């Protein structure tokens, strides 16, 4: 196993109202090259802070005591080139007044040294790869002309335009409905396999994470609770918190909460 990124004793502290709040405490974690790793947790668990720390996107007032090595990369990663990032809300990550073809081509031009015509050809190819209908006219479309799922496809195309080694998807399907969510998960799985990328999938949904990831890391209150192969985490969780998360999932086979005899007639 080649280690893409090795995180040792990562601590992130935010300053809020004059006091320091630790968002992550002493996290040590290896991300294997080519794996699909899910980071799951509830609000305040630190899962998004971890994603931002790995991508070097933490806001300035935060204090970071961090040791991340990148043996699988052999250099300090550059955001956009070595790490692609897909956020929850594609409307916020895409420029509303720039045609989407230009937004994707810009990434390819900046990081791959392509000319504009080459970059546009690459953008069109990427729109085909993310299965956007009619890529030729889509190049000239603005984000508001697309549905939420289509916008997320464009955001993914931009994220992978420079051929990153690591793709980070932070709640990338949480704002989408169930059917579109399943389509985007299928798309991410295919693109990661085709390009040999490593995937860091950040989610609050343990069922969704289990469908996509080979390993799952469970976070709570800024600490890594448990890390293991997906089947082991789901079938034999070592920590009570992991078991509680699994038990709280209301699946299609869950015992109904409703006492039907209680219905007034």
């Amino acid at each position: 196993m080649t280690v893409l990124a090795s995180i040792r004793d990562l601590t992130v502290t935010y300053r809020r109202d004059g006091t320091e709040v630790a968002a992550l405490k002493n996290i040590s974690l290896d991300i294997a090259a080519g794996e699909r790793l899910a980071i799951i947790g509830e609000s305040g668990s630190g899962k998004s802070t971890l994603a931002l720390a790995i991508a070097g996107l933490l806001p300035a007032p935060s204090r970071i005591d961090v040791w991340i090595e990148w043996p699988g990369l052999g250099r300090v990663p550059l955001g956009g080139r070595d790490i692609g990032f897909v956020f929850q809300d594609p409307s916020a990550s895409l420029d509303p007044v720039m045609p989407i073809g230009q937004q994707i081509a810009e990434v390819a031009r900046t990081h791959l040294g392509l000319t504009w015509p080459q970059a546009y050809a690459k953008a069109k190819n990427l729109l085909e790869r993310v299965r956007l209908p009619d890529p030729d006219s889509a190049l000239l479309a603005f984000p508001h002309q697309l549905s939420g799922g289509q916008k997320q496809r464009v955001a993914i195309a931009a994220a992978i335009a420079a051929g990153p080694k690591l793709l980070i998807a932070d709640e990338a399907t949480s704002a989408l409905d169930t059917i579109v969510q399943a389509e985007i998960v299928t798309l991410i799985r295919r693109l990661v396999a085709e390009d040999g990328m490593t995937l860091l999938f950040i989610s609050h949904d343990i069922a969704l994470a289990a469908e996509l990831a080979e390993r799952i890391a469970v976070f709570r209150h800024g600490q890594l609770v448990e890390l293991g192969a997906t089947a082991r985490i789901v079938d034999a969780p070592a920590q009570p918190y992991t078991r509680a998360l699994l038990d709280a999932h209301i699946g299609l086979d869950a015992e109904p909460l409703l006492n039907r005899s209680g219905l007034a007639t």
Partner: protein
Amino acid sequence: MSLLTVSNLTKRYPRGGKSIAAVDDVSFHIDPGETLALAGPSGSGKSTIARLVLRLIEPDAGRIEFEDNDFLALSGASLRARRARLQTVFQDPLAAFNPRATVARVLDDPLRIHGIASRSERPRRIAALLERVGLAAELASRAIHEISGGQRQRVAIARAIATKPSLIVLDEAVSALDVSVRGQILHLLLDLQRQERIAYLFISHDLGVVRAVAHRVILLDAGRIAESGDARAVIDAPRSAIGKALLAAAPRLHRTRP
């Protein structure tokens, strides 16, 4: 007699020079103490139906009868009076409330506006409402933005039940909550339903939750009813194309040792 009867409801919006039906000839009823779920993909019309039932928007055609009144014909004071019986809880209470208001203020408003309790009586009523939704009375003095998401949704439920409604519209009311909190809120809602005989119009994209809490479900597709019936029967074996697609897309946990 049904509590709410919706007949041939239609709402159209202009889009790209054409008129698109967001809700297209939809009819259903809700009985007292019953949970009817509306499920479907984005754009299927479920939230538009909620807004029509709440009269936040007006339909292009159709009838809504609520507690034996022609609800669409009501206006002014008679509409305000009837609205006390029809409450709502939205997905994001932080967006629905003034974040700087205190919990007491949020609960004081409906008691005052609907003339339910005198000024001197209201603090006691507010404490009772907080207790009813499982919150400490001391929370009354805290600001909405200071409390947790789960506590906020409990306050939203307390506010909804303050006017003794017969129907509450729950529009993705548990969708944004952490899973550990979501179960508690669902139990609270079912408990209130049993004790107060409140009916719910439960809007959700999550078939697992719908199956667990609803008596009946309507599956919507492009503004029309694709399928309806007993919630467990429909979700366990949907017949419509959209029902099958929703079921296939739902994430599953394959636990061999639950």
